[in-house]
Structure formats: C-alpha cells, structure tokens
C-alpha cells in the first residue's frame, strides 16, 4: 500500500501514468509559451532587443505554437487520465500509446529547435516541408503535420477501443465523436495553394473548428468528469448538461465559423450567417457557468480537491468572459471591420485561451497530483498551507486580466486612429502604434506578463509540493440527490 503524501506511480493506472507524461511535457511547454511571450512583448517596447537573432516573428511563433501544443498535450493527458475510470477497463493498446507519446514529444522538440535555430528558408516547397509552413498557429512543417496526425490517430485508437471494450458512458461517447472531428479537421490545413483566400478559408476550418467547437466540447467532457471527481455530482446531471452544451456549442460554433469569413474574399452572405451564429456562441458558455456554480453550491463547496474545483469554477467564468463576452464584443461585422487584425484580437485571444482551456488543464494537473500522492487530502486546511495554490491562481488571473485590459485599450486606440480615422495604410498603422495610449497599453501588458510569469513559477512549485506533508486521505465524496 502506497504511503499517502508520497509521489508514487504505483498509485496510478496505466492510462494515468501515460497522462502524467503528457502533463509533464505540457508544463514545460507552458513555460516556453510564457517565456517567448515575454520576449515578444518586450520587443514592442524595445524593438532592438534580439533584432536579427530572435526576431519578433520567431518569438511570437514559438509563443503561440507552444500554447497550441501544450494545451493539446494537456487535453490528451486529461483524456488518458479519465479513460480507465470512465470505461472501467485498462487502456487498450497502451504500449502503442506510449510510443505515440515519445514520437510526438520528439517531433515537438525538433520542430522548436528548427524554429529557433533555422527560423526561415527560401521560397520553395522544401522550406514548407522541413522548416516552417508560415501559417499562423499551424506553422509546424508538413512532416510534423503528418507525425501529429499519426500520433493523434494512435490516441484516438486508444480512447475509442478502450471505451468500446469497457462501457460507453455519455462522457466517453461525446469524447470519441469529438476526437473524430478533432483529427479530421486538422487535415483541412495540410495543403498548399497560392490562392490566399482559399488558403485562409480552409485554415479557419482548422483554427476555428478546433478552438471554438471541438476544443470547447472536449473541455465540456473534462468539466463533466472534473465535477464528478471533485464534488461527487451525479453522472446523470453532468451528462445531461454535457449534451445541452454540445447541442448549443456545435449549434452556434459550426456556423459561427462565418465570423472569420467577412474579409478574406468570401461571399457577403457570411456577414449575416457569421454574425448571427457567432453572436450565439456565448450561450453554451453561460450554461457551463450555471452548471458548475450550481453544482458547487448544491454540494456546499465540499470538494475533495479544492484547487481543482477552484480552477474548474475559474474555467466556467473565464470561458464565458474570455471566449464569450470578449468574442461577442467584436464579432459583428459592423464593428469587426475596424477591429479585425488589431490588438482587440490579441486581447480576446489571451483571455479566451486562458479562460477556456488553460484553467481546465490546470484543474486536471491538480486532480493528477492528488492521485499521484496516493489520493491525498486536498480539501480545506491542507498541511503545508494553501497559500501557494491560492496565490498562483490569483497571480495568473491578475496577470491575465492586466494583459487583457491593456491589450484592449491598445486595440480601441488602434481601431480608432489606424482604422477609422487613418484608413489602415502604413502611415496610419505607425501613427497608431506610436500613440501614447497604445504605448501605455503595451507597457501595462508587459507588467501583466511579469505577474503572470510569477504565477506560473508559483504554480509549478505548488504542483511539485502540494500534499507532500499531508497524511490524511482524500475526503470522501458526498452524493446528493
């Protein structure tokens, strides 16, 4: 019998051990995202910093790619984590899953090294295959695309085969169908065309349908599992909510794709379709807030894992405000004409990815750490104190909100001076960039970045130490009808 409070992998089932590997790489890449974000932010203030060595384009690329990949690692890890619990049987094809993990991790390391050391190539197909595809978010060269698809298929096989062999819960069913979409949609971004309208049309299939549809449904599954694990909410309740969320999420998100089709050469009917459906996209996020907060209240906040529950509640609100409200603010074409491609987008992007996805993956980190330490007590008055996780949560939120608000102010100024008044040419662009209101926003964003980085360091420290001095077992779940 394992000792409570001591890190011991014998506390974990096969899927969870593999999930932990994914989580470890995710945390490292999270750190890389923060680091390169800080560098890119600094270059707005000190343009000569690392000029010609690590240019803004490189730092920004690593910043956003590290984010996509670490969240993906977090999602895959979380899915492996819940797989045996949900299905009731050991993971089918676990060895293959482990192999997939190592190949994927190796591919990520090689891609990042090439980004940093080689950076660019000449204007040929070879560069796109080997160095950098040069398309925002999916810059990974084509060889890596193929590797990613193969590894995701292995992951899909593990999940689908395990649920098929064991029991197909509602969470399992939604997860499997969602992963079909996740893997399939990625293929839409894997080809070259000189036609930039066509390029961006399909590129949005990957970016939007991943981020605003399949990823949202995936975190819906994680939310359902998380609430059952931390609060003991009945399966029937979370799964009914999950179906409601899927209906609303896909019902608004699939055609909400149209809000990216206003200005890229696509027809005018997308104004109405994209505007209408994307305006509905916050609705499922309201449902998630109601769901999480109601359940937490119903269970009188008696959770088995306080930090995880706190991050789940943070997810509900962060998703609603970051993805929902911040997206809605500039989704209608009449406004988007002036905000598209300004710091508004950066403000929304930061808040949405953090609120919707980072929060949920961190909740799973805490769920994992608890089990890894022998299902240790992680409710109120934890031995060793709760200040670290509370301060990490606070600093990450304060830092993120500071960045979001600062970028929003810069975005307002840019929309006004560069777009509305200046007419969007080069002189107008630089006039807006030099405006004191814009520069102030960049400074405050940087300060927010440093606060966020401090929160990240504290989070890692806490994840490594929480529950270490605790000897009590986890509180029992209280089932309430």
């Amino acid at each position: 019998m394992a000792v409570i409070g001591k890190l011991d992998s014998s506390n974990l089932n096969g899927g969870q051990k593999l999930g932990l590997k994914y989580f470890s790489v995710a945390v490292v890449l999270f750190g890389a995202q923060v680091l390169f974000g800080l560098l890119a932010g600094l270059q707005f203030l000190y343009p000569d910093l690392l000029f010609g060595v690590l240019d803004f384009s490189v730092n920004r690329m690593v910043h956003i790619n590290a984010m996509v990949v670490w969240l993906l690692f977090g999602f895959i890890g979380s899915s492996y984590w819940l797989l045996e619990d949900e299905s009731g049987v050991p993971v089918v094809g676990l060895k293959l899953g482990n192999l997939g993990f190592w190949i994927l991790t190796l591919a990520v390391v090689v891609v990042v090294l090439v980004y940093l050391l080689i950076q660019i190539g000449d204007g040929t197909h070879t560069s796109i295959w080997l160095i950098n595809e040069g398309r925002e978010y999916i810059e990974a060269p084509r060889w890596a695309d193929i590797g990613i698809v193969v590894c995701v298929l292995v992951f899909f096989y593990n999940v689908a085969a395990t649920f098929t062999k064991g029991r197909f819960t509602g969470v399992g069913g939604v997860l499997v169908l969602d992963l079909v979409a996740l893997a399939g949609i990625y293929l839409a971004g894997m080809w070259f065309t000189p036609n930039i309208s066509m390029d961006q049309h399909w590129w949005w299939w990957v970016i939007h349908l991943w981020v605003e549809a399949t990823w949202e449904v995936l975190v819906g599954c994680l939310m359902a599992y998380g609430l059952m694990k931390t609060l003991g909410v009945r399966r029937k309740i979370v799964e009914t909510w999950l179906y409601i969320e899927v209906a609303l999420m896909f019902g608004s998100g699939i055609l909400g794709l149209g809000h990216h089709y206003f200005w890229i050469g696509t027809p005018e009917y997308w104004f109405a379709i994209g505007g209408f459906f994307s305006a509905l996209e916050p609705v499922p996020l309201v449902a998630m807030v109601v769901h999480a907060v109601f359940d937490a209240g119903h269970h009188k906040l008696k959770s088995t894992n306080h930090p995880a529950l706190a991050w789940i509640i943070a997810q509900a609100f962060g998703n609603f405000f970051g993805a929902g409200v911040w997206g809605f603010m500039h989704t209608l074409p009449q406004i988007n004409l002036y905000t598209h491609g300004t710091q508004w987008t950066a403000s929304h992007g930061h808040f949405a990815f953090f609120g919707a996805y980072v929060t949920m993956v961190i909740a799973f980190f805490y769920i994992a750490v608890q089990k890894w330490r022998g299902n240790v007590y992680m409710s109120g008055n934890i031995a060793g104190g709760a200040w670290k996780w509370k301060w990490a949560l606070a600093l990450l939120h304060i830092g993120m909100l500071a960045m979001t608000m600062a970028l929003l102010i810069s975005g307002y100024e840019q929309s006004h001076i560069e777009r509305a008044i200046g007419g969007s040419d080069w002189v107008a662009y630089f006039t807006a960039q030099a405006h004191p209101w814009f520069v102030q926003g960049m400074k405050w964003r940087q300060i927010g970045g440093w606060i966020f980085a401090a929160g990240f360091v504290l989070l890692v420290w806490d994840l490594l130490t929480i529950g270490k001095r605790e000897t009590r077992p986890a509180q029992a779940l209280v089932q309430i009808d």
Partner: protein
Amino acid sequence: MSKEIWWASESFWRKNAIWITAGSFLVLIFLTFDTVSQITAGGKRVPGYSVINHRITYEFDESRNMQVPVIGVEEPLFGQKLTEEEAQALVTRGKLTTQAKNCMNCHTLLGNGAYYAPDLTKSWLDQSWGSKDIREQEMVDFLMNPQDRLHNGLGRRMPNLNITEEEARATIAFLKWMSSIDTNGFPANFVSIDQEN
C-alpha cells in the same frame, strides 16, 4: 427529481445534440461548396493571377456602400506581360516566399496574422511607396534590404530575411494579386497611391 420532465431529460438533449450538430454541419458543407466556387482564382471575387498585368485600384462603390478593387488598364508588373500560367507560377513563388519567411508572424494578410507590422492586404496600393513610377523598384529594394530602412518613429525594423531579387519580385506579384481580391470593403477608408498617368 423522481419524475423526469421531458425537456430536462438526458435522452432529449442527447438527441438534440446529435441532430443539431449534424444539421449545422450539413448546412456548413452546402455553404462551403458555394464559397469555394466563389473564391477560386479566376472568379468574380478572386481574380485570376494574370490580373497582375493590369492596373488595380480600390474605389468606393455606391451600390455596395464599400470600397472594392477595380481592374483597370493594362499595366504589366515590371513591364512584362505574362500568360495566366506564368503569372500563376510567379504568384505561387511569391506565396511560398511569404510562408517560408514567416511574414504572417509580424504582419497581417487579409487581416490575419500578427500585429507587429502593418497589414499587407493593400500594401501594393500604399502611398508610402512614393509614386507609381518608382514603386516596383522601391518594393524590391525594401524587401531585399529592409534592416537599415527605418520607416517609423518607433525604431521597429524589418529584419533581413535573405530574400533574393527573384523572390522579391515574386512576392510583389503576390501582393499585387492580393490587392485585387474583393474583401468586402476591408480595409475601410483606405487611400491609395496615385496611379493616374
């Protein structure tokens, strides 16, 4: 909770989730066929690549109440008239160059990308190139050696990306072609370089 209400039941929402998802996806597929046919190069919204043989302007259209690209008199890029195939090859090379040099992680194209440098959608028509007569050479020179050309008061510069003259010319062909795409009036209020003789 002993008696289940139909609209709050699990099975009702499961069916809804399936039907709504499938229905939305079908509508998307239908619209995608139409959109793809409209944005194929050579169509009304996205001109064929040989449009680079012509003058392109961006003018206000009263009926649509927005600015739209207008294809004007013959005005070949670098004074060299190309066939559709030659033009496509050149624009393809230019597009490959923009990808391999990672333009999109500083600039935006059609408004998508990063926000460290200006949008390139109408860069072919930008007044900053001085005059129509020197524009092409100015653009080549800039792309090949941007690092010493401070063009703003911020100190922000474009790094040297080892762009060859051939790549620079191809990139300009791509930019000229891109300026002819009907982007529903994006960017708004844009004032073009004077292209009258």
